[in-house]
């Protein structure tokens, strides 16, 4: 990108970063204040005020698209712009090792800080949440698959394993997949990269993942039995904030540090994948 073109992205990147960080910090702050005061979380109330029909319709779109992306990528197809093309992921021992490494680090990372409670019975510090977009950005589909498996392992350790975990599996795949697929530059060494990071990895990734899982929990209500108000009025906004806050504050810097190391090792996804136009 030209110096002039690069400069044009500095202001939008700064604006989107400030907005996204402010939203996630404000969300966490209101959660803390409202929970401490014993009143309903205002974000949850706002989410629920949009109505179940709204979330069912919007969530359905997110869910169908997300599921198509998951199976399409696994089936060896992807899109470039609006064109559907074939891709060749090697799935050799290196790709398998990358996916297994991501699964172990993400699954273990989500659970290892369990017990460092912020609000008893509600949440704890989960710094590993920031790893999912990084794994996607650096390792592509093997990283996204590792993230999905890692979340499944964490569900078991945290005591949340159930049929709802299938939604968490694909939801966390998307959390890694969205920045991998939609960011133009994963090096984090340009203003455009930071703009894309805050837009796709933090904002859209977190929201998509939360809505995907929530919709799955909603349609499985007869089996799982979670109240609709809890799903859309607490769980969904909570997952957005929980994913977004560490990703917004620390994730970008970590991606900046890790990119040259991964690239030097020849593990960056773009150096290992082939596309058939």
């Amino acid at each position, binding site marked *: 990108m030209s110096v002039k073109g690069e400069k044009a992205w500095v202001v939008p990147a700064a604006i989107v970063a400030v907005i996204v960080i402010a939203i996630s910090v404000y969300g966490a702050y209101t959660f803390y204040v409202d929970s401490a005061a014993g009143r309903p979380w205002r974000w949850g109330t706002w989410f629920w005020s949009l109505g179940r029909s709204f979330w069912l319709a919007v969530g359905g779109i997110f869910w169908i698209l997300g599921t198509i992306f998951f199976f399409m990528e696994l089936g060896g197809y992807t899109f470039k712009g609006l064109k559907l093309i074939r891709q060749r992921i090697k799935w050799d021992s290196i790709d398998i090792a*990358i*996916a*297994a490494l991501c699964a*172990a680090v993400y699954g273990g990372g989500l659970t290892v800080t369990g017990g460092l409670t912020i609000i008893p019975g509600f949440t704890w510090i989960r710094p590993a949440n920031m790893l999912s977009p990084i794994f996607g950005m650096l390792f592509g589909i093997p990283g996204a*698959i590792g993230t*999905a*498996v890692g979340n499944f392992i964490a569900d078991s350790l945290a005591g949340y394993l159930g049929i709802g975990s299938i939604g968490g599996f694909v939801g966390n795949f998307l959390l890694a997949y969205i920045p991998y697929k939609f960011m133009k530059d994963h090096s984090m060494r340009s203003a455009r990269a930071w703009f894309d990071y805050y837009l796709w990895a933090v904002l859209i990734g977190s929201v998509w993942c939360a809505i995907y899982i929530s919709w799955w929990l909603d349609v499985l209500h007869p089996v799982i039995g979670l109240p609709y108000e809890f799903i859309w009025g607490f769980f969904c906004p909570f997952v957005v904030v929980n994913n977004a806050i560490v990703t917004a504050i620390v994730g970008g810097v970590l991606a900046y540090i890790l990119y040259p190391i991964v690239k030097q090792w020849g593990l960056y996804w773009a150096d290992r994948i082939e596309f058939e136009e």
Partner: protein
Amino acid sequence: MAQMTILLGLGVIMIVAGVALLYGLKRRVGAALMLMGGGWIFTMLLYGFLKWKGLYGVNPAEAGYIHNIIALILIIVGLVGGIYWIKKAKG
């Protein structure tokens, strides 16, 4: 229990499909399916172990932080094993 049976069944299906794709149809994506299936079965074993020990769903502080210790071991084994495997594969 029925939910766990479904999850276990899905894990087994993924492994069987992965083996069929990788060794039968010579499709490399089978390795990815086997990895996912393996991850599922590992998770179910972890669940079974915690349930058997009466630690499943128990607050970490009450369980002596056993979940945290398992998670830490998982990170170390995953990192060391993954890096060793990658280095070995790269020669």
